[in-house]
């Protein structure tokens, strides 16, 4: 029992602190809400410490095989904690200016994080589903945080209806897999599918529904419709949250289900992922060109990027999985920095949502223009930024498995993508500013956002540590 609890210590810590902040929120006057903020940050920091200090070599299964504590889970949990912490820092001024800086925001964010962490450490379809629902329900509520405005409510409604549909599909698929193999346990299912036991037709049907559910959560074409609306409608800090840490959880989900439990069905899901990847890369990048809102543009950019990530994943070997993981991590932190700059430019009554709001940023502030330049070139995959090595790794994985044509399609899609990222650079550097308000942000936020942006360059010049970490984490967790 003690070993069981030890394995889920980080989740317990987050749950306990979420509950604590919820209760404490009752007694903290709105004027001193910063206490909740710092409590949440302290909880995140403490949980990071717990994750690091309880990390051990090897895999531990707990609660009768319901959860697993392995290095993959530890690494992803740590990165998700960092991403959520960044989100709270970047979003603080925005939330304060709009009266959203309330206790429930922190509680919901922590619950969403709890859901992600449960997904990352799941060893059974039930645990996976449980984590997914904790995450999704918290996110639905967070998107609707600004409940008196029309756009967030609409976005939350769309997100909820489509999300519920996807969850239903996923559950339907899981039930078929259960019917064919007689188990929810990912390892048992893996044994059954690898050993060619169970009804293959039933398994194939189940797989289709499961892949659909995963595709929805990743937001890849043709299950992408919710992404632009939710990104656009949600308050920007929540958009940042939706666009970053849950991608890590979705990666863990994809990996544990497809590369773990359904490894025996590799040739079936490989074909599906090729279609999803190809459609996402091309459509995501093409439609992004037409956007005039930064948030919508970044939404389509997410779709395209998840397509790229799948290109690495569908190589279906350690090389491919580690490339996909590296891609996801690189994307999460690039995306966090991009929304961080959008949040920095926004202020009371001004969203900085139109791409024209970036006009002449180099005149207003050369430093933030430079940070955004790094982010944009990283997203475009231009060296020496981190994003280049991410694209490079997934291309290598695809070519390695003989998908040269898919790699060529991918690079052509990223050429299209370069166009709209360059347009932001063009607005910042080549145009004259229309908005001359000074950029105000707390010093701490500035320092963190600068570090985040510069990390894209530094990790681009020295990518080995992060790349190596992804390989080691996956190899240690037997993928």
């Amino acid at each position, binding site marked *: 029992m003690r070993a069981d609890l030890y394995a889920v210590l980080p989740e317990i810590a987050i749950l306990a602190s979420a509950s604590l902040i919820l209760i404490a929120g009752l007694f903290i006057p709105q004027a001193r809400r910063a206490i909740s903020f710092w409590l949440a940050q302290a909880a995140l920091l403490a949980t990071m410490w717990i994750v690091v200090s309880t990390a051990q070599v090897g895999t531990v299964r707990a609660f009768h095989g319901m959860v697993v504590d392995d290095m993959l889970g530890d690494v992803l949990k740590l990165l998700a904690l960092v991403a959520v912490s960044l989100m709270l820092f970047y979003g603080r001024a925005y939330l304060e200016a709009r009266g959203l800086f309330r206790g429930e925001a922190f509680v919901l964010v922590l619950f969403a994080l709890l859901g992600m962490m449960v997904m990352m450490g799941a060893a059974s379809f039930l645990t996976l589903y449980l984590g997914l629902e904790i995450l999704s329900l918290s996110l639905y509520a967070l998107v609707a945080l600004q409940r008196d405005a029309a756009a967030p409510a609409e976005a939350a409604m769309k997100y909820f209806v489509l999300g519920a549909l996807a969850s239903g599909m996923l559950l339907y698929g899981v039930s078929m897999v259960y019917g064919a193999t007689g188990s929810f346990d990912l390892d048992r299912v893996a044994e059954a599918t690898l050993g060619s036991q169970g009804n293959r037709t039933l398994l194939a049907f189940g797989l289709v529904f499961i892949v659909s559910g995963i595709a929805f959560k990743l937001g890849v074409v043709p299950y992408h419709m919710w992404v632009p609306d939710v990104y656009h409608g949600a308050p920007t800090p929540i958009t940042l949250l939706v666009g970053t840490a849950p991608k890590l959880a979705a990666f863990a989900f994809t990996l544990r289900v497809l590369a773990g439990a359904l490894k025996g069905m590799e040739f079936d899901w490989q074909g599906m992922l090729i279609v999803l990847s190809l459609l996402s890369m091309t459509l995501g990048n093409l439609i992004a060109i037409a956007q005039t809102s930064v948030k919508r543009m970044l939404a389509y950019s997410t779709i395209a990027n998840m397509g790229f990530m799948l290109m690495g994943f569908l190589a279906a070997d350690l090389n491919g999985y580690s490339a996909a993981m590296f891609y996801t991590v690189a994307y999460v932190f690039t995306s966090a920095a991009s929304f961080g700059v959008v949040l920095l430019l926004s202020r009371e009554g001004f969203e900085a949502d139109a791409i024209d709001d970036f006009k002449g940023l*180099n005149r207003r502030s*050369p430093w933030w223009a430079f940070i955004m*330049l790094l982010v944009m*070139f990283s997203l475009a995959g*231009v*060296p*020496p930024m981190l994003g*280049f*090595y991410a694209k*490079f*790794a997934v*291309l*290598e994985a695809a*070519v*390695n498995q003989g998908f*040269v044509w898919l*790699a*060529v399609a991918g*690079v*052509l899609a*990223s*050429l299209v993508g*370069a*166009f709209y990222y*360059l347009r932001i*650079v*063009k607005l910042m*550097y*080549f145009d004259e500013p229309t908005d001359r308000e000074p950029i105000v942000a707390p010093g701490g936020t500035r320092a963190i956002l600068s570090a985040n942006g510069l990390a894209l360059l530094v990790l681009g010049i020295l*990518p*080995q540590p992060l*790349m*190596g970490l992804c*390989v080691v984490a996956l190899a240690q967790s037997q993928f």
Partner: protein
Amino acid sequence: MLPYLSLAIWVPILAGLAVLVVHRDDDASRARWIALAGALAGFLVTLPLYFHFDVASGALQFVERGEWIPRFDVWYHLGVDGISVLFILLNSFTTVLVVWAGWEVIESRVSQYMAAFLIMSGLINGAFSAMDGVLFYVFFEAMLIPMYLIIGIWGGPRRVYAALKFFLYTLLGSLLMLVAFVYLYNVTESFALQDWYRVPLSLPVQYALFVAFFLAFAVKVPMWPVHTWLPDAHVEAPTGGSVVLAAITLKIGAYGFVRFILPILPDASRELSAFVITLSLIAVIYIGFVALVQSDMKKLIAYSSISHMGFVTLGFFLFSPLGVEGALVQMISHGFVSAAMFLCVGVLYDRMHSRQIADYGGVVNTMPRFAAFMMLFAMANAGLPATSGFVGEFLVILAAVKVNFWLGFAAATTLVLGAAYTLWMYKRVIFGAVANPGVGALADLSRREFWLLAVVAAAVLAMGLWPKPFVDVMHVSVTDLLAHVARSKL
């Protein structure tokens, strides 16, 4: 021995960052002086590369090798041979010119301007010395970022269009090359160029890789018909940008042919040589005629660059020492001459703010010293003996005649065409009566401009009169390269 190649890369880059850090909006002179010091230091550290170069050896020299990304077996592997060493010198020399040329002319965002050129200079040196595929690609692509900003921020009226066209065109080619790199990595399990030289490849594979490499480098050279970005980029770029584009970045494309295409894909190169030679001749002749009808001086020089670079690719695909050496000499000579021509146009543009030939006439009456310098450069551009322009063209024509008389004949038309478009432009701009009051009020060269042009003029004359030091350096490496290309990799 000091790591001269690393110094050649990182001294300018660090100097560029230093310029950015110390910048003050009210006092640009500090940025200028730091930039000049950085450019001079960058040039000085490349001098040992020439003086300590062993001309008797075709092997890589000044090699530095350290592990960089073990995950993909990528190494920080630098080295130069007789082919690449001269381009590093040329690049570092040009950077000094560019910083100097932009001294008073650039008034807005001086620190960013200087920093962009210095950082680009370091990246270009990296591309010329990288002996690892990924390392090369990183330098090759990263230099697009400063060039994009240079054209877009300090360029002419259509700068946004030109910058975007430049970036996307080059990116298209290089992305396909990245796939080719990854493919070669999967075959050889290494990104080392030397491993790629050795690996046997079947002919269909060589063809496919040829297409990818060819697109990347042909866009950069640029060869007809993918040249259309160059006139736009040149016309809109500030003088310094045009100088670096013409003198250096075009050379990286041509360098890619000898560093990648010929040695990695020798069979495809031989099979497709007729194709490349045809494109080269179209560039030489057709683009020569196009240059003839230009009314914009910068556009005329841009087209003349394309025509001259056609000579370079022609020389490479004749597969004879004479041809390859002629092409390499032509590359270096063109580096000096095109830089000088763009500097001359810059001198006029700074005074009159027009690049139209029709706006000028009779400049010799008010700017006699300038007219003398431009005369020399125009002659060099036309390939007159005793200037650097003659040596390369003559060697390539000689090599072409040895292959086929009519091939040499077609190539030799450049001597006529080059003289026609350059001298005709010179006549319209410089000679005649003073065309308008603007020309009448022109002031002759300032001391800065005089010495700037004098330095380049000395280089042009020296290379024309005594090309041996240049040819000696490359001779052994070229012989080795051709011996390698002659062996089949099937």
